[in-house]
């Protein structure tokens, strides 16, 4: 392996600069995302490092197994490239093109230098393509990992944004739940409501589920736990917005929602105000008192 | 670490808390596993005649977890399912602790031989 590799390697070493120039030129041609000087500088640097590592790792190692320790610096470089590209919004293919685009100038170089020896040319070309394929695939996998991490983070942020707790009045919080509730989201919701109870000193929390299409056992259990936890802390909950279908489901599932519930948030707010000793008065008719 | 006295129970809580923080647990996650640890640690002292606790912080790919292993050479538990099921009706019994600790954990394993001792392993993952 080492013997036969070294011919191609020697050639890469001998013609490093021109090969690099050709490769960079090709990448720029393929580049569809505009000519951003900062990105171009980065790409040039990555390419230079890639060729360097390619020679170094192949020379140092006895095999072209890119998962071995000799190839660690190369893998690190490809990790950096993938991460950068993933964050910049490139596709997986565009990221792997970084590696695959080297084939054209490299084979051109091999053909020029080894053209007179077709067997050797074929062998070197085959070895080179195999190695570059492996490196290209590694790049795609590294890209995937980064993308997944980004998506995970975005999901987390979305979850946090979509669970707002509002203070309707002094001492009265409202949590309007919207959309389908899954276990993870309900837990976050639970925790943020309880946290707000502490920071606001609110004694009543209205949990409105008008915007929740279905309630299954798991969600109901989470709601019950939230209500119990709030009680332990010294606050009370009122459930509002239970639609007839949900009421049926709850009865059907045999669940006991041990909490006061009102049909609408308005009713719940009215109850909450009464409980906290407040009354709403219609000032145009001072003789009467609204409740 | 040894779990032989009620001071050890406090120390065990603090040690588990430290490891849970190191594993990146959220506050709620920490509280759950420390509370579970407190329950089993107490059982180990009160019913197991004292024993030991081993705390491991584990990593399985992207998942991280904390595993606790409590070992004692006490009288053991004759009927484990009974002990786990004993809800809040048993006064001062082990039931409260065992069942509760299980509810607070993702993993829970208990082996006990009457006359030989008990091993309880519980784990929580994020």
């Amino acid at each position, binding site marked *: 392996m080492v013997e036969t590799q070294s011919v191609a390697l020697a050639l890469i070493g001998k013609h490093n600069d021109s090969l690099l120039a050709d490769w960079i030129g090709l990448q720029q041609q393929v580049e569809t995302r505009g000519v951003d000087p900062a990105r171009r500088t980065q790409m040039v640097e990555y390419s230079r490092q890639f060729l360097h590592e390619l020679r170094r790792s192949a020379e140092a190692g006895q095999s072209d197994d890119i998962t071995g320790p000799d190839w660690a610096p190369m893998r690190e470089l490809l990790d950096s490239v993938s991460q950068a590209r993933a964050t910049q919004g490139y596709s997986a293919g565009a990221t792997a093109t970084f590696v695959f685009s080297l084939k054209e100038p490299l084979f051109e170089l091999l053909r020029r230098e080894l053209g007179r020896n077709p067997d050797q040319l074929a062998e070197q070309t085959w070895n080179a393509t195999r190695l570059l394929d492996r490196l290209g695939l590694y790049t795609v996998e590294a890209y995937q990992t980064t993308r997944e991490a980004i998506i995970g983070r975005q999901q987390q942020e979305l979850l946090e944004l979509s669970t707002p707790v509002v203070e309707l009045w002094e001492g009265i919080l409202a949590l309007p739940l919207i959309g389908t509730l899954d276990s993870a989201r309900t837990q976050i919701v*639970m*925790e943020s409501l*309880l*946290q707000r*109870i*502490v920071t606001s*000193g609110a*004694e009543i929390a209205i949990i409105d589920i008008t915007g929740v299409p279905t309630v299954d056992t798991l969600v109901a259990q989470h709601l019950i*736990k939230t209500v*119990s*936890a*709030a*009680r*332990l*802390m*010294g*606050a*009370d909950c009122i459930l509002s917005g239970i639609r007839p279908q949900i009421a049926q489901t709850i009865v059907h599932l045999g669940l006991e929602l041990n909490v006061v519930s009102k049909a609408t948030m308005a009713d719940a707010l009215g109850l909450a105000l009464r409980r906290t000793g407040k009354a709403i008065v219609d000032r145009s008719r001072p003789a009467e008192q609204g409740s | 670490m040894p779990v032989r006295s*009620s*001071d050890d*129970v*406090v120390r065990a*809580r*603090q040690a588990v*808390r430290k490891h849970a923080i190191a594993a990146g647990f959220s*506050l*709620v996650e*920490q*509280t*759950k596993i*420390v*509370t579970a640890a*407190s*329950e089993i640690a*107490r059982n180990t002292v009160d019913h197991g005649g004292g024993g030991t606790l081993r705390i491991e912080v584990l990593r399985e790919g992207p998942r991280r977890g904390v595993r606790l292993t409590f070992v004692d050479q006490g009288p053991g538990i004759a009927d484990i399912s009974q002990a786990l099921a004993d*809800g*809040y009706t048993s006064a*001062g019994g082990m039931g*409260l*602790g065992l*069942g*509760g600790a299980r*509810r*607070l954990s993702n993993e829970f394993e208990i082996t006990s031989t009457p006359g030989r001792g008990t091993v309880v392993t519980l784990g929580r993952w994020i």
Partner: protein
Amino acid sequence: MGEIPILRIADCLLVSIQVDMHDQLALALQDDLTRRIVEDRARGVLIDISALDLVDSFIGRMLNNIAAMSRVLDAVTVVVGMRPEVAITLVELGLALTGVRTALNVDKGLALIRGAIDANQRPDARRKI
């Protein structure tokens, strides 16, 4: 070992648990409180657990016991300041605090006790946990 101090405000006893309690300390507190309720003829007991980062079944039972004993002695028990993560864990643990009323903080807790004493209500008539 240490002791947990019990303060008296008018006809109420105020306990603020600041330390990570081991079991003996919890039992000592139980006994001390019961004794003080009688000695001081207290009508209300306020237990501030805002510094506790953990309430397990033992401490939970301690709170229940204190509430039960004080009820026998015609006093109201209110627990204040439970932290959210502690509340969540306690619910998961499955421990019910029976006969224990709760409030968000000391101020509201004292108001609650005042209200209960003035109205001469029995503590278990209203909101159960």
